């Protein structure tokens, strides 16, 4: 791929452009440090949704519209479909891509919490070859990520979701359409009679990166769903996340809403028991 040769030839100089829904705004306002751009929008290697018995592999250029239109994703990965449907309006969904959402590395992205809860892996490609990284280890700090200057995100791999799984996704913004989230929550759980066999929690807009909440999960895993457990989990979540005041919301509000969303998810699980 010529794109990889460009990136390898002058590392850090070239900026790849996909749908442009984030980058064009920065470019026009003079906020992009890069001066050289190349379009990856038409590269077939980075597109398409492939389904195998083990996983669904989404090309990095998969748009939010394509996510919503895919049968397997609608059936097994409803949180990702919901995130896609709540990202911008139709025009943004037709151009915005999953790979771009990840590479933009905003802590407020809508799809990252769902991808974290699904245990996504990213396939990164360069002239050196291809490597897989766990998405939970990809974002290392605010706008920092495990992506070499010569690498592109090529695919997003999601392990198939089998059996009875409870999924909960909720984005809280100022208004229903076109808003950037104040808090975004994705939760996935499997129950064993009255206890939690497996649980994965991920939040957006509450830390410098999209955050998988392993400590809160550890409090919940294997436990019986009781009111005391929910309180315990709320307290642990407060320690695990680090929301801030900014133009969209306040630290206090985000903390309270994050705890309430966790409680809402756990209460819904309780009703399943």
């Amino acid at each position, binding site marked *: 791929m010529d794109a990889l040769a460009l990136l390898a030839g002058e590392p850090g100089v070239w900026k790849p*452009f996909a*749908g*442009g*829904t984030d980058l*064009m*705004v920065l*470019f*026009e306002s003079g906020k992009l440090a890069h*001066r*050289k*751009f*190349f*379009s990856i*929008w*038409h590269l077939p290697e980075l597109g398409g949704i492939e389904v195998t018995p083990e996983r669904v592999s989404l090309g990095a250029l998969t748009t939010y*519209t394509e996510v919503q239109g895919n049968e397997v994703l609608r059936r097994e990965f409803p949180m990702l479909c919901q995130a896609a*449907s709540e990202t*911008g*309006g*139709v*025009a*943004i969904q*037709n*151009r915005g891509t999953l790979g771009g959402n990840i590479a933009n590395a905003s802590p407020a992205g809508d799809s990252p919490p769902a991808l974290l809860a699904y245990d996504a892996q990213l396939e990164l490609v360069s002239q050196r070859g291809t490597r897989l990284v766990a998405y939970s280890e990809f974002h290392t700090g605010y706008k920092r990520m495990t992506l070499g200057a010569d690498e592109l995100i090529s695919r997003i791999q999601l392990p198939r979701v089998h059996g009875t799984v409870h999924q909960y996704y909720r984005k809280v913004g100022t208004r*229903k*359409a*076109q808003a950037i989230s104040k808090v975004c929550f994705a939760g996935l759980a499997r129950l064993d009679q009255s206890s939690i066999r497996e649980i994965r929690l991920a939040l957006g807009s509450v830390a410098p990166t999209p955050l998988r909440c392993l400590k809160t999960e550890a409090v919940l895993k294997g436990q019986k769903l009781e009111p005391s457990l929910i309180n315990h989990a709320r307290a642990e979540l407060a320690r695990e996340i680090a929301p801030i005041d900014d133009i969209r919301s306040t630290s206090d509000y985000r903390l309270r809403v994050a705890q309430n969303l966790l409680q809402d998810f756990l209460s819904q699980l309780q009703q399943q028991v």
Partner: protein
Amino acid sequence: MPETTEKVAVNCRVNGLEQTLHAYPMARLLDVLRENLRLTGTKEGCGEGECGACSVLINGRLVNSCLVPVVQVQGTDIKTIEGVALSDEQLHGVQEAFITCGGAQCGICTPGMVIAAVSLLDQNPHPNEAEIRTGLAGNLCRCTGYIKIFEAVVKACQSDGAKA
């Protein structure tokens, strides 16, 4: 594609006509449509993909033309508000409905609203109310004339003209 500060030639079809657009590769499709082709029906509102005033269709898909670098429209089929009417004499059913229902006030959002509605009805000729709201969610009207715009789309769905 290599770095260039030179203008490039981008071939595409706009409202049914083959065009060669000479522009800087990172120029916004919005500006090239308005300035090179003088298709000034497409408006600039926010310039950052929030308001939908610059909506056009690329290969039948609704996009914000302020967010599309022109180099990415090579080989595509573009439709702007100027290409929506069926002929010089006959408007599209959506346009007729906007007139009948008073779906325009200051008019800046109107081309984008019409394009978004045309796009919605192309994909889904009989949308329910929620689907209409979702279809127009990316288009802002700062006169806040949303009810009449919504009614216009409902009316367009009921007329045969919607599918034209």
